[in-house]
């Protein structure tokens, strides 16, 4: 049975004890409560909308204990989407350095992963993983909310 399915349920799910034993208390709390911070690079705005879609009633990431926060000081996950151009690069670096560690970086969309259609533009400053270490890639142009959720669940059950 797929272990990641446990994340869809309440704390009463049968994998609760299993996971708790496997991960240890700290890691378990961390994975059960991720605060998301959204960094939009030079995106075409589609990925931003799909990320916000995950918070709507239909997809509802709060059932995984996730929550969108406004200040990077509270963040556990940095969602980066859009192509990173020369103006964005120092800002992304600064945001990354301001975040309290441990922080997970997720590159969303073709632009975040590889550069996508902007990869050959003259202001392009390299995909996200050339600038900061990336933990997960979610490809797609734009990725569906289902794909984003699937990526997040994979990350959690890593």
């Amino acid at each position: 049975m797929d272990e990641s399915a446990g994340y869809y349920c309440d704390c009463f799910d049968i994998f609760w004890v299993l996971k708790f034993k496997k991960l240890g208390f700290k890691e378990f709390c961390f994975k059960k409560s991720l605060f998301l911070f959204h960094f939009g690079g030079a995106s075409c705005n589609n990925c931003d909308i799909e990320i916000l879609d995950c918070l709507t009633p239909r997809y509802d990431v709060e059932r995984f204990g996730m929550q969108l926060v406004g200040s990077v000081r509270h963040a556990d996950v940095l969602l980066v989407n859009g192509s990173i151009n020369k103006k964005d690069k120092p800002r992304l670096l600064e945001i990354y350095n301001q975040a309290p560690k441990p922080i997970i970086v997720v590159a969303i969309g073709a632009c975040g992963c590889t550069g996508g259609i902007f990869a050959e533009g003259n202001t392009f400053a390299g995909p996200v993983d050339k600038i900061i270490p990336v933990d997960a890639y979610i490809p797609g142009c734009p990725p569906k909310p289902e794909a984003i959720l699937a990526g997040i669940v994979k990350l959690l059950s890593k």
Partner: protein
Amino acid sequence: MLKDLFYYLIYPGFLFVAVAGGLLSFFDRKITAWVQFRKGPPLLQPFYDFFKLLLVKETIIPAKGSRITFLLAPVFSLFGATVSSVLIFLPLLGIKTGFTGDVIVIFYLLTIPSLTYIIGALASGNPFASVGASREMKLVVSYELSFLLVLIALIIKSDMSISLYDIINAQQPANAFIGSISGVILFIVAIFCLQAKLGLVPFDMAEAETEITHGSFIEYSGSAYALIKLTKYIMLFTLPAFIIALFMRGINLEGIGILWAILKVLAVVLILTLIRNTNPRVRISQAMRFFFVWMNLLAIIAIVLIFFGY
């Protein structure tokens, strides 16, 4: 001595209110999710949040801030919340403390969290935090007067007794204060004051996520932010309990009384949650006018009604 320590640290002090407050915070988030047709977080979510912030995350101290003040402010806010909760819960559970005038002390202790948020925000040296602090200051100035008027009205209503134990016992089983016209008016005023004290949505301009990105708390991270979260949980339990003591004859922990006690707390928190889910955030000037003109007017009308015996 040992008994006092037990009162302060375990029951009904720190440990009890922290756990109950965490569960109430879950209740608040779950009701919010249901109002928005979502599924909502798991039962232990507030505790996951707290322990993650406390144990896992790094605490960053802003370079331009004042280090000691910044880190001590959350500790003092936790102290203020805990001590006020002990002073409220001892009379509420029927333990006579022999402390006359504790209503006034509780009134001051309940403002300590807001004051320490202001101090911590100003010590962080962030411009957004200072905007948040200035808004919080204006909010404190506006709601405290209404809250004080409510307390004065209730003191008059209970024949000038200024101890919480006597105020609870002045309400006979058949006529709790909320059963009279003046009581209902005062209850409305008190609920709005609670909303502002807890920083819930119509009055959350001090930590508006969308405009000043968490305002007063923008620079807090890791353990310091965990303490602020814990203070918020405790206040979410303590303030409704205070309202129950003042208006609904306190609680009675014998037999079926436990169920009634839980229902009373949940009902007050439900009102707060529904207000927060059905209203947009107001501007600080609108909030000040709301409290200075309308809430004070209502409280004064209630005091006049009390003099005529309603």
